[in-house]
């Protein structure tokens, strides 16, 4: 059966032969376009333990658009191949519907992530990769620990996650969740992320924080939501605390940072907090749409921001706020796209980030947690502090003694256009998410 997964996986393997060839990019882009087409037709991974829904299908389409942009932007052959692999395993993870298939695809995603960052050129990249690897192995351990508890309590691997059962099963499920939270960078499983996202190449960070994280979030929610909904007395206070701590910590650490990549990393942690809000508000019928919307918005804006930063670093050597001063005069187009994605991250309306937050926050209100939403809103306002500060650096500060240099229009701009259109489209047309199903 031909599906997005098979196409992506096969072309990923095939692409190994085309390294150092001009055909690599067209081939990969065609493959992604094809997989988009097949996903649109409703093709799914036709294996036991995998199934799809309209929500998942929509997100897959979005994922493929983002993959397209990522590949369009990418100039390193090996990363293109790995992007395709990562796309394939993301599709798997999204469609996993029993515990075993979920864990297998989750681990494969983790493995590819590690492979991705292990393409090391500098000492910093090495540090980032190693930190991620250590945390990742630990998380896998925790996940397996939880799984062991779960199985010990009588849980079945080839079934969807049980919503009730023995104490061991419940404990096991929670511990598994803890292991998975590593990927979501929930405090206290976030330590690696701040460094890794900031230190590895920005296009890798775009994939890790933009794609892998959102896919994981959506998949985890799909699998665990029924369980959480039946354990509200425990899950709500626990996850609410984690959500508040995560978003607050992320936002405060991002404030006053000088390094742009680091700001984006911390903001990524803060966004994990908002996503967790959907887990807290699981009893609301809007939690589903909330997490989906958040995932869609986030995949566009986070990838877009990191890719823009990648271009900036590549052509202008920008990595700190100081170097960014007056950037709008250097390259108004890139500055515009970066601003757009940052505003989306900040939750400024008419951009996807705002509606995503509005829906997730509404889910919180709907679940009766308006005080939690208030904290999240104030956090969101706090986050405007550093996003607006980046924008201020680009537009309000004067260009410091650098000569104006216009980078040629490249594929990277095409990638930015795609991602910006995504952010805009989902900022206006909420119907595309709500009016399905």
């Amino acid at each position, binding site marked *: 059966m031909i599906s997005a997964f098979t196409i992506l996986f096969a072309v990923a393997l095939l692409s190994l032969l085309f390294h150092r060839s001009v055909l690599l990019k067209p081939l990969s882009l065609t493959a992604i376009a094809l997989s988009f087409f097949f996903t649109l037709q409703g093709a799914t991974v036709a294996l036991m333990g995998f199934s799809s829904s309209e929500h998942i299908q929509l997100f897959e389409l979005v994922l493929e658009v983002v993959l397209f942009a990522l590949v369009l932007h990418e100039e390193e052959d090996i990363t293109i191949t790995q992007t395709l692999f990562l796309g394939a395993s993301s599709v798997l993870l999204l469609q996993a519907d029993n515990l075993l298939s979920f864990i297998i695809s989750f681990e494969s995603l983790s493995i590819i992530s590690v492979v991705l960052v292990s393409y090391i050129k500098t000492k910093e990249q090495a540090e980032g990769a190693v930190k991620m690897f250590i945390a990742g192995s630990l998380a896998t351990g925790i996940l397996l620990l939880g799984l062991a508890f779960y199985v010990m309590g009588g849980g079945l691997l080839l079934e969807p996650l049980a919503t009730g059962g023995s104490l061991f099963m419940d404990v096991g499920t929670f511990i598994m969740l803890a292991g998975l939270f590593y990927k979501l960078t929930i405090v206290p499983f976030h330590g690696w992320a701040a460094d890794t996202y900031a230190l590895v190449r920005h296009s890798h960070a775009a994939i890790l924080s933009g794609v892998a994280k959102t896919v994981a979030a959506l998949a985890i929610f799909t699998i665990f939501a029924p369980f959480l909904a039946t354990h509200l007395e425990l899950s709500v206070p626990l996850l609410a605390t984690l959500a508040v701590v995560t978003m607050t910590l992320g936002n405060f650490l991002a404030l006053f940072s000088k390094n742009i990549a680091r700001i984006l990393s911390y903001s990524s942690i803060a966004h994990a907090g908002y996503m967790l809000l959907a887990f807290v508000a699981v009893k609301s019928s*809007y939690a589903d*749409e909330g997490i989906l919307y958040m995932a869609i918005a986030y995949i566009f804006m986070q990838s877009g921001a990191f890719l823009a930063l990648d271009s900036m670093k590549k052509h202008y050597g920008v990595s700190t706020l100081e170097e960014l001063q007056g950037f709008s005069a250097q390259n*108004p*187009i890139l500055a*515009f796209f970066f601003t757009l994605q940052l*505003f989306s991250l900040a939750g*400024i*309306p*008419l951009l996807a980030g*705002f509606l995503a937050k*509005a*829906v997730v*926050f*509404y889910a919180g*209100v*709907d679940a009766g947690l*308006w005080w939690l*939403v*208030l904290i999240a*809103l*104030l956090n*969101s*306002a706090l986050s*405007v*502090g550093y996003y*607006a*500060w980046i*924008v*201020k650096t680009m*537009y*309000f*500060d004067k260009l410091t003694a650098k000569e104006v240099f216009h980078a040629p229009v490249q594929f990277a701009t095409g990638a930015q256009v795609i991602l910006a259109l995504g952010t805009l489209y989902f900022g*206006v*047309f*909420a*119907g595309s998410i*709500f*009016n399905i199903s």
Partner: protein
Amino acid sequence: MSAIIFIFAPFVLALLLALFFRGKSSVSKFVSLALFASMLSFSLDLFTKLPNSGYLDLGSFLAVPAFSFTLSLQVDMLSTIMLTLTSVMLILVAFASWSMKNQALYYSLLIFFSGAIFGVFMSTNFLWFFIFWELTLVPMYFLVGIWGAERRIYAAVKFFLYTHVASMLILLAFLLIYKEAGTFDMTLVKEGMLLSPVLIWWLLFVGFAVKMPIFPFHTWLPDAHVQAPAPISVLLAGVLLKMGAYAMIRMVILLLPETSQQYAWVILTLGLITLFYAGFMALYETHLKKMVAYSSISHMGLVAIAISTMSYAGLSAALYEMIGHAFVIAPLFLIAGFLHHKTGSWQMGDMGGIMQKAPYISAIFVLAGLGALGLPGTMGFVGELSILISAMHSYGIWLAVVALGSLFGAGYIIWTLRRVIYGEMSELVAKTNFKMNIFEFAALATFALFIILFGLFPNILFDFLNPAFAQFTSLGGAL
């Protein structure tokens, strides 16, 4: 022509102009003038179409029934008045900005702002209202941050963050309304549907109070006003603050009448404090534009008092004062900015005797100043008289203290005129050339004309303002 064009076309136009016409400033200038003029004719045309009471439906777009998220555009008398005021202000601001630097970007941001503000006044869906409400911040952030004075960055960031925090409270209130009333459609929500009207009232009140601004939420305004380029200060005072007052009327007073009645004293007290507090601040100020900014805040205190009466007369008076304030404060800001631009100083002490160098500009400054202190024959007087009468009608004799507000006005305005316009010429003034662009002067003169025209014949406005609150004829006052 469909109303939605006036919301989204500006966004697209702004983007196109900013990206592809960067070198051709005159294009953006004339495009924006044409756009604002068509906005004005659209708004004026609405008056002829409005039904006797209630809303005129301008269409619904982008329906998302599952989230009650539909861009429904409806206007009533109140919003049509606001649309008209906004269009007029935009046209005049476009003229007043004639010699601004980096015009392509400037005017495209202005165009962007016009779309957002039209969205605010036309949408009757809470969430869309909020979207446009927030969207007005973005162009303002850039306009203050790029074209502002020395401390523009501080002012722009403070303005953006402060008002954004306030918006978060508003958003929470809207989400609560949706949960409790089951819809984001503000024409369908009734206070009785709400389970926690008090919480919602406070969230909305504080949120809008920041925008108006009312003491103690006012401190962003002097900074933003002072640092913003003069035409943007006009836009801030003339349109953005009015947005706060409009929302306060529509979403606090009209939406939650019972809770508002219960807490009217809060609005009243803060309004009174604002009136006098800002008066004292203006009295002490030696910074010309800051003085104007505090005078502006002081007048918004009057608007808050009028709103708090929740009566037919009071709300009409509030609306009149809002318009009057826009026209009166605009020339003051424009001239303050012009003087700074020419002399390089903000301090009144450095000026003096400008009447000798620029008699016509000075005369307009004097006229607007007299408007600000409420002299009969200007809009300021009619506003103050209406508010005095309506406030006393609702609250009794002790509201006569409102009259004292115009004593403060006299104090700071007359003393400012003495220091800036009259007296001996300072060295700085003597060596400065006060030549003003003809278009900028035309904008000033138009404001001056409005101040007198509507000050002498207020019924021209009240014929429109009164019907906006006709439903209150049967309701009576707050107390």
